[in-house]
């Protein structure tokens, strides 16, 4: 049985309430940090843990905290990014729904480490149940003396507010989130300056993902070095994975980083294999923005080693043969799924969610969607594949924020690994229209085309 840190008590009835959470050892990290550690000690423990941001970029959390500017007389802010909008990713929502106090405890510890006296949890506007749950949890923590003035008599004051977002995917990008939090249109800011220097209201700000903040609790409880022993190499600790698609048991799993992908998909402890006895065709390993990989590449690296659930192993081979841990949204596709249709679906999302500030993303995402739709509807031409490739190439890296890359990568990977399926769609328009995209057009669906 794998070790769990965040979801240890997930099955305990009432764990979402302060009382039960406290009975199960909750808020020990707050007591320990505030009463026995200096803010710098907390930062040091997080650095020792090797914790990497769980939102998608995987940047070391402790290092991010150490970049925070600390000018005299200027407030500092911690902002929790609970916007979670990546298709296929739902682990933060799970955490906020079922163990809200784990997030609050992490918020208090992290705010203390950063010297923040006001912190915000920014939650996507559509997640009203989660917003209410968090607000209730804040009230409970306040009554118990873990929030507000002079927490536990230590002299440390902290207020936490829950802020519903505007319901835009782009507001999950940290600078767009800050704009939205300030009451403005959620457009990404151009960096530099980075939020650590000029963030919320122009003050030094750290923006962390829900899971990253919650992970500080076991780090403080057990020590950074203990945490670093879990996982492997530079991927330490545990990670929440939201598994979806054609799996026997989709859901949110806490895994130790370093778990083989094959074990995650097929073992009974996790996803239990592919539903309805089908074969696995492809996997999107970290939310819709990361490159899709065909079965052989998601199970093995190009060198024939087992692909592991770690930041490094998933990225092995770069864009040619690798993917990314991303936000932990693991989507499995069985042999009957249409890659063209799926790519169109993802692209439709990015087109809809592009903020429209910069030209390549604003116009390019829409263009890609239209070309993909045309192919999917059986009106494509072989030259459309080259066109698609060229459009994504011209979006990637040329935009203000990573949404452009997020839109470009799925298209690039789909063409790179499933070009024959695009060609089949174009050459068999009637079959495509009737969704007869089974195995018939494949010589071997498990053999990808990798140039």
């Amino acid at each position: 049985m794998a070790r769990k840190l965040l979801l240890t008590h997930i099955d305990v009835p009432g764990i979402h309430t302060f009382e039960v959470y406290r009975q199960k050892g909750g808020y020990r990290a707050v007591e320990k940090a505030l009463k026995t550690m200096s803010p710098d000690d907390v930062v040091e423990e997080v650095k020792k843990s090797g914790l990497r941001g769980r939102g998608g970029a995987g940047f070391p959390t402790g290092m991010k905290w150490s970049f925070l500017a600390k000018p005299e007389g200027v407030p500092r802010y911690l902002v929790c990014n609970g916007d979670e909008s990546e298709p296929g990713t739902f682990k933060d929502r799970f955490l906020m729904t079922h163990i809200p106090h784990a997030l609050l405890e992490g918020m208090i510890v992290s705010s203390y480490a950063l010297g923040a006296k006001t912190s915000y949890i920014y939650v996507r506007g559509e997640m009203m149940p989660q917003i209410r749950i968090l607000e209730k949890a804040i009230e409970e923590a306040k009554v118990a003396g873990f929030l507000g003035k002079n927490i536990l008599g230590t002299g440390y004051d902290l207020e936490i507010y829950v802020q519903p977002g505007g319901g835009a995917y782009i507001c999950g990008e940290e600078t767009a989130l800050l704009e939205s939090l300030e009451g403005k249109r959620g457009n990404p800011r151009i960096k530099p300056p980075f939020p650590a220097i000029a963030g919320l209201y122009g003050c030094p700000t750290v923006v962390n993902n829900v899971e990253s903040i919650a992970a500080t609790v076991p780090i403080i409880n057990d020590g950074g070095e203990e945490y670093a022993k879990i996982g492997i190499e530079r991927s330490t600790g545990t990670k929440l994975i939201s598994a979806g698609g054609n799996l026997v048991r989709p859901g949110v799993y806490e895994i130790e980083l370093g778990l083989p992908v094959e074990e995650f998909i097929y073992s009974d402890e996790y996803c239990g294999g592919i539903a309805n006895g089908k074969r696995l065709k492809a996997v999107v390993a970290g939310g819709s923005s990361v490159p899709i990989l065909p079965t052989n590449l998601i199970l093995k690296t190009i060198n024939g080693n087992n692909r592991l659930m770690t930041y490094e192993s998933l990225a092995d081979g770069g864009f040619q043969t690798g993917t990314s841990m991303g936000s932990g949204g693991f989507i499995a596709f069985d042999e009957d799924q249409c890659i063209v249709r799926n790519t169109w679906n993802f692209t439709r999302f990015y087109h809809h969610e592009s903020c429209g500030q910069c030209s390549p993303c604003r116009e390019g995402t829409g263009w890609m969607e239209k070309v993909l739709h045309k192919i999917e509807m059986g009106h494509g031409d072989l030259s459309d594949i080259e066109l698609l490739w060229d459009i994504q190439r011209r979006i990637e890296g040329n935009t203000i924020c990573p949404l452009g890359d997020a839109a470009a990568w799925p298209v690039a990977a789909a063409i790179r690994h499933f070009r024959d399926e695009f060609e089949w769609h174009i050459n068999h328009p009637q079959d495509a229209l009737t969704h007869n995209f089974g195995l018939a057009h494949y010589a071997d669906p498990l053999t990808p085309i990798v140039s």
Partner: protein
Amino acid sequence: MAEEVKLKVTIDGISVEVAPGTTILNAARQIGGDIVPPAMCYYSKLEGSGGKCRTCLVKVSKGSEKDPRPMPKLVASCRTTVMDGMEVENITSPDVVDARKAVVEMLLINHPLDCPVCDQAGECKLQDLGFEHGSAQTRYEFERRTFERIDIGDKIQLHMNRCILCYRCVFVADQITDKRTHGIIGRGDHAEISTYIQNVVENDFSGNVIDVCPVGALTDKTFRFKNRVWFTKPVDAHRDCPTCSGKVTLWYKGKDAIRVTARKDEFGEVEEFICNTCRFDKKETSDWKLEEPTPISDQSVISSNHYTHFNPPAVIENNPVLQEQNLEQLARTEKLK
């Protein structure tokens, strides 16, 4: 007095020393010439502008003397400040030229090439950019978005078909007018410039949104379709204005001033924003003290018909009849000044 610190930056092999905080674009502008990146959304007089259109992307092949590593991606030159020893590639980088070509293609997806009827023809930055970096054919085959023209106030017309969402007019509304009445609604390629529902843009400085628009989306209703810009003759003039500096350019057609705009620098940016009274209500020569013909680059289409010296094109150099006619044309032009 401490010696002023200067940073050395090299753009396309040409070095220049600039003050700290200078952007790559402005450093290039100090050098001038072909190495100046184009800019559709950056506007030096508007705080926070730039970084959006991506036409000014450049390659930083050397970060600085201290950290010579190249930057991993192309960067927006209008928002990236120089470091000492930085080396930048603009027109010498195939990547940059390719990216710029891509941006032009994207911009032209929803911008019609209706230059023959567009009021901005001759003053359109996208037209210049398309000429320099565009392709002869578009690969876009789908329906373009279209809008009805909207009068936003009695003097300004918005034609969203041509808008490239550079945000310049939004910054003008934010920064130099006394109340915010228009902005951007919608997102992605559904975004559009709009006034608050059924509202109008009416304040003393609202006319400046016309001057900052790089394309023909926002036009002056008192001038629309009265003439093509290259048939007019711009003259700098001023008046004592209680609201603004009163420094303008009058655009003459014969004896009549048919348009008044703010004066613009060599990059097409307003030197000083002007009020609506100067722009829309003062079109008599008697309202103004004339200064001199507005300097216009001989590369600009506006310079046609504005001979300042005898410089016959090669084709008529050996033709005495045409030379004579050219001299007559020059004389007539000089007389009109």
